[in-house]
């Protein structure tokens, strides 16, 4: 059954390609903005150095060390940027997810931006609430790992606890919390529930339906693939421009997956709870907007 929902999500995403484009463009714009200090610092340090060509072609530890030394406060600047970027990214993620839920409900006929406008505030509060189970899970994993370390002692035991169990437990746990969050957000946007109700309802979803888990895990596999591949390109293709282009295609694909992923969850939710179908009047997407896939 979950395959059906994944297919439907895929079809919905394909029918409104500009939703993926928005996700991709926002992501790209943010990356572009953050990379400007790098361009400026590296330009100043290398454009007249004669090493630009050589450094573009491969990694030279000596030159990189000199570069960072001459670039002065670049690294602190890059770190400091995260102070304002991460909150913005968080709000964008909450708002855009709510927008996608709204857009893909009712047969995928509604406005993304309207959903974004209507639900970003509440979705952000909900997102902050979901930090609680995430934090609890992290603490739990640390505690379990500590206990495990007393049983799986020694070097081999530490290896398995630190490098296998802990990352895997963190990853899977956070993935499940993310899934709870997805459905909690859907309940908030489509189910007309309050923030606290949505929070609690969302947390029931892993037990609520096997299909919900399958849909999430299915899309997660695709999502991982489209994230791992660009990372691998970093390692295998070095500094080639071609790598960047291929990475961008893959990251566009990853954005498409985000849209399809949420669409599948929305379709599944609405089939589970047809009575909660939102009849507010905003089949509101204009013809022009629909035509543009937004």
């Amino acid at each position, binding site marked *: 059954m979950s395959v059906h929902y994944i297919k439907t999500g895929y079809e919905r995403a394909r029918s409104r390609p500009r939703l993926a484009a928005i996700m991709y463009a926002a992501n790209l714009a*943010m990356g572009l903005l953050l990379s400007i200090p790098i*361009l400026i610092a590296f330009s100043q340090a290398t454009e007249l150095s004669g090493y630009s060509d050589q450094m573009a072609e491969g*990694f030279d530890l000596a030159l990189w060390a000199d570069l960072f030394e001459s670039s002065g406060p670049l690294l602190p600047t890059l770190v400091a940027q995260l102070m304002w970027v991460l909150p913005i*990214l968080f709000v964008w993620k909450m708002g855009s997810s709510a927008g996608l839920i709204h857009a893909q409900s009712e047969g995928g006929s509604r406005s993304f931006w309207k959903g974004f406008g209507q639900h970003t505030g509440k979705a952000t509060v909900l997102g902050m609430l979901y930090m609680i189970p995430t934090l609890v899970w992290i603490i739990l994993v640390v505690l379990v790992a500590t206990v495990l370390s007393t049983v799986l002692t*020694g070097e081999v035991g530490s290896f398995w606890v630190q490098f296998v169990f802990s990352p895997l437990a963190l990853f899977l746990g956070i993935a499940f919390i993310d899934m709870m969050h997805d459905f909690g957000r859907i309940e908030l946007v489509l189910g007309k529930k309050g923030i606290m109700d949505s929070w609690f309802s969302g947390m029931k979803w892993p037990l609520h339906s096997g299909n919900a888990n399958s849909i999430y895990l299915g899309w997660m596999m695709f999502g991982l693939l489209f994230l791992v591949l660009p990372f691998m390109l970093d390692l295998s293709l070095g500094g080639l421009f071609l790598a960047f282009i291929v990475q961008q295609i893959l990251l566009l694909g990853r954005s498409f997956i985000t849209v399809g992923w949420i669409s599948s969850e929305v379709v599944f939710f609405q089939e589970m709870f047809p009575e909660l179908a939102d009849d507010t009047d905003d089949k509101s997407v204009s013809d022009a907007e629909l035509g543009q896939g937004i």
Partner: protein
Amino acid sequence: MDVVLDPETRSIKGTERLTWTNPDSAPVDELQFHMYLNAFKDNNSTFMKESGGAHRGNTAKDENPWGGIQISSMRIADDVGDLRPELLTSRGADLTQSMTFIQPDDGNVDDQTVFSVQLPQSVAPGETITLDITFESRLPEIVARTGWAISESGNPFIFAGQWFPKIAVLEIPGQRYVPADASKGVWNAHQFHANSEFYADFGTFDVTIRVPESFVVGASGIQVEESISDGFKTVRYKADDVHDFAWTASPDFLEFTQQWRHVSIKALIQPAHTGQAQRHIDAAIVALERYDEWIGEYPYTTLTVVDGIGGSNGMEYPTLITAGTTYGLPTWMRVLELVTIHEFGHQYFYGLMASNEFEEAWLDEGMNSYIETKILDDAYGPGSVMELGPIKIGDIQAQRLGYVKNDPSKGALFTRSWEYRMGDYSKASYSKPATVMNTLERYWGWDMQQRFLKAYYAKWRFKHPTTRDIQNVAEEISGEDLEWFFSQFVYGVAVVDYSVQSIRSTKKDDGSYSSTIRVRREQDGGFPLTLRLTYSDGTTKDLEWDGTESWRDFKLQGGSAVIEAFLDPEFKMLLDINRLNNRLVANDYADNRFARKAQLRAISLYQKLFFVFSGLF
């Protein structure tokens, strides 16, 4: 020596018969000994005060981590002949009462790592004296190189290094820095310091060790006997022409062996690391092959590589080294190979050359680190210490960065180990000398360097060479006065940094160009170097500069404009602390390709990280 290990009390009890011949032309009435386990006797030793009880990140955890040596008796042997009548009357004399702890380095009266014993009669030049010593060594919990630890399986691990009363070196007139016209030799014995390794004289060791039957033993030298009775294993080792003797024992060791030419290689590996046993052996062979070819033959027939625990790892003893590893160490991270190659290298620069590591650590650690960089590059390729996709980090680069980006104006190579400022010891004993020697090699070429190394080894093995001696060999072999090099980079702390300041080309009425290139010496260090100019027509021209002036203008006339000036284009001068400013292109030829590519990579990285971040919520 004849000793028994008691794993319960973590002690080694036994007897030592020391046969010592006076090498001096003057009588000797005092002997000096190292008692280095006393460094771990309490918090008041010089080692503990200097180190704060930590070494390479290792600290003691046991309630009673302390160790030490106690001598219960020291007598002139009464069953050995060839003594003069004066000494014969002293046969059997108990010297214990005339033992006095001395503190030649820092006057710390609580330090008991060196003692002097007054003889009842002096030992004449060339005469031999034999002492019988009964001692008990209580091993400390391993913090720095030696002691006991409990393995993961709960079994004892013993590493006995610096574990017995060891006679110091009597330096005779003309040896090392003792003036040739001095009336007599002087004892060179230093206290155990946080920042130093060791110095001792060559001799022959014959050691019988008794351990519980289940223990696997590894030791310096050649095993000549083994017997088992009453639940105990007795092994006997002989080691000729070495200046120390160390051994290890644990029931956990798994033994792997392989023969390389005349050398029997034995690896004693912890059970969790069996998958990496061959990496240890292969790295040892890689080092043996290259030392044999580049420096000289390894004169011993055994080599034992010990995969120790914690602070015992990364240490060298004659024909026995500790390397260690961690479970799951990936093959692209060649730390295991690096450490094994480094510790093997000490068989030459420590073992055979036996320089004074207290006073001139760079001659051992630094020369060894230099050869280590060569071997890693040669055996595994440049950039082979860590190879992760496009990121390759080589040992030469890593050693260079350890110097050039780490306060390069501090810490001369020629400095007594315990007098370094905090953090300067490792830079000045490892990274900087490796970079200095790599620079010297690039200055005069590998052929000359190899001749120099071979000559140094041939002339000075078994003789405790000094900095002055290595400089003399370098000058003899090359026929060049290298005072300018040694005074700056070995005895001094000169810092090298050259830069190209500006390129100015103007077109003259006749269509030719007049170019002026200004180069600068940014720091106090000087080095002859090449300035390579590239013209707009694609041709290049090399000019030589002795690098002594603080700045210089090179003025040239020609049919084309100079578009690039490049100091040291072949990167011979690894000591230059900033390579980025060695090169300059004319403004019209500014190239932003790297910055743009870096930006693209950063964008892509951010994008990926944003997706990862989004997945968290």
